[in-house]
């Protein structure tokens, strides 16, 4: 049988308000070990600073309230605060780079792998107007489009050659020995990281010795109407690889979900 209040998260609770106690007059009472309140006839005796109304002071009135009431109000306040913060400080969109979620990263990638950087070489492009860096990886775990043990060279913008440096904000920077999960695409005759720094996930060991991944997006400025995926928190490596596999399966079934710009 459906009761009228069954849909409520909690049924209305009865509570004893200050001044409605049935206890014997004149006996001070303690609630929840922290907040003391008095029976009505005691109140006038403890008034410090009078206010219009019943002639009692503010601090006296405050102590009328049991701790449970105050704590419940604080909980409501924290909820309101969180809500307010989320609404007022909602992360904005960005100007200089389109944010890619995991589906879009997968959709744009020709290959995805976990690997280790074994060689980093910077050089001028053929037209001698830009510096690029070729980063050679050994694939330790091919996830998509590439097999274990293969070597692959990924080009990034910027680098230093003979004392001249070229710097591009948002371009990933690899160092020999770095272990990463990379999402790469082929453009022209070279392979590049998808979405600049967005396609690089560093592999590292946490304090407990577990392999985890994390992402660095410093230098990237986002744009478009999607919220930036800046909330990628360190994740267990195996969990992330599983997530990528699931995303690949989803993309195979529903290509529109992994659609590109």
């Amino acid at each position, binding site marked *: 049988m459906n009761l009228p209040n069954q849909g409520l998260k909690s049924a209305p609770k009865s509570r004893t308000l200050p001044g409605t106690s049935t206890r014997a007059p004149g006996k001070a009472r303690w609630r929840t070990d922290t907040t003391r309140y008095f029976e009505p006839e005691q109140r006038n005796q403890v008034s410090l600073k009078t206010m219009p109304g019943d002639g009692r002071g503010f601090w006296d*009135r*405050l102590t009328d309230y049991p701790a449970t009431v*105050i704590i419940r*109000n*604080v909980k409501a*306040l*924290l909820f*309101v*605060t969180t809500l*307010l913060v*989320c609404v*007022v*400080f*909602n*992360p*904005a*969109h*960005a*100007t*200089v*780079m*389109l*944010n890619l979620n995991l589906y879009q990263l997968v959709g744009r990638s020709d290959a995805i792998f976990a690997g280790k950087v074994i060689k980093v070489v910077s050089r001028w*492009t*053929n*037209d*001698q*107007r*830009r*510096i690029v860096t070729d980063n050679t990886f050994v694939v330790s775990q091919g996830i998509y489009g590439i097999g274990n043990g293969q070597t692959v060279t990924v080009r990034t*913008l*910027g*680098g230093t050659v003979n*004392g*001249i*440096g*070229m*710097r*591009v*904000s*948002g371009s990933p920077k690899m160092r020999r020995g770095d272990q990463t999960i990379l999402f790469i695409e082929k*453009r*022209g*005759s070279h392979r590049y990281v*998808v*979405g*600049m720094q*967005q396609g690089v996930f560093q592999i590292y060991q946490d304090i407990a010795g577990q392999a985890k991944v*994390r*992402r*660095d*997006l*410093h230098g990237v*400025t*986002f*744009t478009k109407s999607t919220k*930036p995926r*800046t909330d990628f928190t*360190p994740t267990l490596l195996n969990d992330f690889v599983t997530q990528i596999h699931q995303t690949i399966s989803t993309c195979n079934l529903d290509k529109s979900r992994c659609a*590109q710009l």
Partner: protein
Amino acid sequence: MILRTLGGKKPRIRALLFVALFFAANTTLFSFWAPNVQAYVPSTGENNQQPVFWMGSNCVYVQPHSQGSDDIEDGSDIEAIQRSAQNWQSATRGCSFMRIIVHGPKNNAVPGFSKSGSNENVVFWHEQKCPEEKTSNEDEPCWEYDLNAAAITTVFYVDDPKSSDDGRILDADIEINGASFSFSTTGNKTKTDVENTVTHEMGHLLGLDHPCGDGARSPLPKDHNGDPIPSCTPRWGLPSGMVDTTMYNFADLGETKKRTPEEDDIQGICDTYPLAEDPGVCVEADLSNGGCDGCSTNHDASQFPSSWAWVGTQLLLAMLFGFFVLPIWKKF
């Protein structure tokens, strides 16, 4: 009167008034805090992580390509570039010698660096992406960077710790992805604002970096105080002034607030190019210009309050409200 209203019997009105009161108190508190937020992040070289900046000249020339953006027919895109330069100069005139001078547009400006010839700091819209078979020495320029990037600033500099010119910027080009993005100069909410974007990119051109980092980076970039920069997330944990700076990492479509450099941005330029160290000449940069002995930076700005301090203050404020305001509502 307010308290009586708050204590009224209409819970919705009471809740709304409470939220408004809480927000007002919050804003008031942080309006005192925000002006103390003074930190910027200098762009650094790859090898020794030292700041990069222009030396030996009190100006930087910028050369827009005459084609501009094909989304804008009335020439206001070039005017927006000029305004971006003026925005920096107006904001830093009182404390910095540096000026950005925008040449009239010309049609043979080419982005990239020349080791032998003169270099121009070009602002260039790429309106087509490179074909798959594109080779890097073809003449026709095309967007060969990531398709999701709307604009890229490439900065060339001396990266040689043994050189007196170490960190000296030699060339900086702003390349804009017109192949994938639509631009406007009117603050159109569905397009990317040219002045907003170029003012931000000119900050990179002058040697400033983004003020916060998203995710982990090793080593974590440092602000001018030498402190690791805060994470961009959670955004509400950032110092309130940071999100309004021109160099802040994120912006909305149609956003225009980056057009005007804020205190941190100004501090960055004025510390890097202080009036007292004006070289007194305005020249194009090239490797033969010589060094600049007096171009070291001055750092005396205060540090950011930490994100945890901010969160703690929010909680404290909420607790204070809970203990002192709510009981009054209930009673009156």
